[in-house]
């Protein structure tokens, strides 16, 4: 059920937009109203999330480290795994965000068949699928800017020329289109095939996967099999960008379905697991330098505690103590 319900949800969303345009003629709703709403939800929702996270105090450093902390000058510190300053933190963060370093360390635990021995083996498939998926999604997104800019900057043209380097077919197949679909397919399959992963996977994990798979598939179909009028589409996007939109009738239902799934993705983004786009930058184990031995971190919710020291105690009861023959510190 956790797989089927998100799948049905995405299919219904697709049909809603496809038939909403093809049968009911709701171009303006799907082409103008929903994109604006989705963008506002995306931006406001993400900022709301970030501010909420920033309200949480971080009273101490959380150094889950895999390296030597900076200590004596003759002990070599691990600058990236256990950074003591801002530069090291930036390095560790960059490696995490750009190269998914913590996934690269992923290991699998197995009991070996030839005896009751536990073995730990490096398992890079999640890392590989994640890298392929995220990077191709980034490149696909940047490529789409050709519909959002006029004139189109040379960087975007250069990127798509590089992406279509193999010049297979007309219009050319982009390498990232293929890698993207394969990677999302793999990330879905590993959740379904592996029993452990299936057990911990929720509807919330499958929904974005199906949504992204739907977006990729509709986009691929439109480029290669079910053509649409991209000049009309660019007129629509430029109209949206200059706040003077008009949804064209020339664009097909497939295009509006693609656009609607993207809108749903944007609107859903701040509320599900996808917020890791912003959240990764606020990971306390990644973005804090391990300087606990150099800087004193004061707990922000500490309140002043009323104390009564022994010196004050002696001040108060000194005479009575003296009479009773109890030795005093002062004397």
């Amino acid at each position, binding site marked *: 059920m956790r797989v089927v319900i998100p799948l049905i949800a995405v299919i219904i969303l697709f049909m809603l937009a496809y038939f909403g345009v093809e049968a009911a003629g709701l171009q303006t709703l799907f082409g103008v109203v929903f994109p604006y709403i989705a963008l506002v939800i995306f931006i406001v929702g993400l900022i709301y999330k970030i501010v909420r996270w920033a309200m949480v105090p971080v009273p101490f450093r959380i150094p889950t480290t895999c390296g030597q902390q900076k200590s004596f000058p003759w002990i070599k510190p691990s600058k990236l795994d256990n950074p003591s300053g801002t530069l090291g933190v930036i390095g560790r963060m960059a490696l995490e965000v750009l190269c998914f370093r913590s996934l690269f360390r992923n290991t699998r635990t197995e009991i070996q068949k030839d005896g009751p021995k536990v073995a730990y083996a490096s398992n890079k498939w999640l890392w590989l699928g994640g890298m392929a998926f995220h990077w191709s999604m980034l490149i696909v997104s940047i490529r789409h800017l*050709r519909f959002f800019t*006029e004139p189109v900057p040379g960087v975007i043209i250069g990127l798509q020329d590089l992406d279509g380097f193999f010049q297979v077919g007309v219009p050319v197949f982009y390498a990232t289109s293929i890698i993207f679909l394969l990677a999302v397919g793999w990330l879905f399959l590993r959740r379904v095939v592996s029993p452990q992963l299936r057990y911990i996977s929720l509807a919330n994990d499958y929904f974005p996967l199906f949504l992204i798979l739907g977006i990729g598939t509709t986009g691929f179909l439109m480029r290669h099999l079910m053509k649409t009028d991209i000049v009309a589409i660019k007129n629509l996007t*430029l109209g949206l960008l200059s706040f003077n939109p008009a949804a064209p009738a020339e664009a097909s239902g497939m295009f509006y379905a693609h656009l609607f799934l993207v809108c749903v993705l944007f609107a859903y983004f701040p509320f599900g697991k996808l917020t890791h786009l912003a959240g990764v930058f606020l990971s306390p184990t990644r973005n804090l330098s391990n300087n606990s031995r150099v800087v004193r971190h004061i707990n922000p919710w500490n309140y002043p505690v009323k104390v009564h020291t022994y010196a004050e105690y002696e001040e108060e009861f000194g005479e009575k103590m003296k009479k009773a023959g109890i030795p005093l510190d002062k004397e």
Partner: protein
Amino acid sequence: MYDAGKIILGIAIFLVLITFPFWFTLALGNPDYQPDPELPAGQVQCVESKEYMIHWHMDLLNQWRDSVVRDGNRMYVSREYGDRHEMSLTRTCMRCHESRERFCDRCHDYTAVDPYCWDCHVEPKGE
């Protein structure tokens, strides 16, 4: 809010990046531009219907190339109108659509499409 400076800086970077299409188009771009491919005067129809040509011209040209280069077959029978045409970019397409600049490039530049037709073909210069 803790680390307000860094959080606000991060949000500012996010806003600048996500609104890139908006400010780029408003500041440097030309949002009202409409590509206006020059249609040949005196012609009523292409080798196929207008809609088919808008959607599938690149595929048709690709089929023509394969047919001519691999099979030596130069004759194309229109599915829509039934008339016969020579499969030739220069002698058929560009006899009516005379100028690459005023026809092909208008939409191709607008949508940043860079077909490799002209790697081999020479565009006719005569007017």
